[in-house]
């Protein structure tokens, strides 16, 4: 059987990939942020998580911030503010 040579249609990464730093092994005294994407129940979920982090893991402070809406990126000022204030920030989605 004859052969045919074809080219891959898959793109190549345009730049260097980012590495997410490891989560801290110890949470005591840290400030933890939650970036709310505005979808239903995210606030309830993270309120409960925040309580657990404070009462059972010694987290000092919980910061809760909300994006304008679920489908556009967080404003640069909001990201800068959370980066300055928090030791760890969780960005998630809820439905």
């Amino acid at each position, binding site marked *: 059987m004859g052969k045919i040579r074809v*080219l891959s*249609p*898959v793109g190549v990464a*345009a730049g260097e990939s980012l590495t997410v730093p490891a989560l801290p092994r110890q949470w005591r005294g840290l400030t933890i942020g939650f970036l709310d994407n*505005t*979808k239903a129940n995210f606030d309830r979920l993270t309120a409960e998580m925040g309580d657990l982090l404070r009462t059972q893991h010694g987290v000092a402070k919980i910061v809760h911030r909300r994006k304008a*809406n679920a*489908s556009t990126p967080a404003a640069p000022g909001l990201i800068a503010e959370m980066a300055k204030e928090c030791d760890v920030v969780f960005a998630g989605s809820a*439905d």
Partner: protein
Amino acid sequence: MTEVLELDDTPEAVFAEFCAREWCDGLPIVPPTEDRVRAMLDGRPPGHSLGAMPPLWRAATFEKLAINAVMAGSEPACFPIIVAAVEAMLDPAFNLYGVQATTHPVAPLVVVNGPYGASIGVHGGQGCFGPGFRANATIGRAIRLILMNVGGAWPGRGDMATQGSPAKFSYCIAENEEQSPWAPLTEGDVVTVYGGEPPHNVNDHVSTTAAGILANVADTAVSLGSNVGAYFSQAQLMVVLGPEHAATVAGDGFSRADVQRYVYENARLPLGLLKLSGMWGMHDWPGWMNAITDPDARPPRVPSPDDVFVLVAGGSGKHSCVIPNCTFSRAVSRPITR
């Protein structure tokens, strides 16, 4: 360096391999050989990138665009339109990351204006959203393959659309400029990309006035389950009038701006009803709209009449359509350069 595969030279073997690798949309492809890709490029530098395409931020090089265009069955004459559409989608205003990754069924609609598109068979007449027209079908399909293979938006992995949409296979039309009573949507050879839902039909077999037809258009444009109006700042509507409806509307003395204004003012729902909508509570409104308390007040669903795009497409018959956008993307136009 692009990976080269050596496969058994049968249509079945090539198709099976591309399906197994998740490199196609589930339909047979034209094998992207070096000769075919070179012809598609038509002298363009293969390594030149138009930018990083989300969600995996891979380089949208001419070569990769050409490979996917070959697979889609495009003729090289279609490639300038495909390139212009990719340039437009990579404009930050289009928010391609959101369009690619959302659970919403949005797909980029490619609207082609100008003589070049017409000369290569991009169709804006009878049945233009449907099958039968190679340029429409393969330009739209090339865009989808590029979004999947270059951007990395595979269903359930990068493309998180809950149900997807038939418009994600191919979504490309021309404006029917010959039968439009108004100036074209855009002047010259231009591609517009619009992050839209599939067309919502407007059937009006009885109205003989602009107000009658546009009342049906306006009603179709808004519904409780729509994104439009919830994420207010980027909400847009596209009204695609069939030529017969357009002739009736224009015959009543309506300009395009009048149609935009009419839809802007009338495509609304009362606040009391909006509180039952599927986005209530997570909506993103400006302060002046949040201050409204009258349940009978009808706040706008798009920021201005300019956010209602009006064009003419289709053939004989009493149908038009409205295409709501996803509301986290704004339409972008780019010239077609050859």
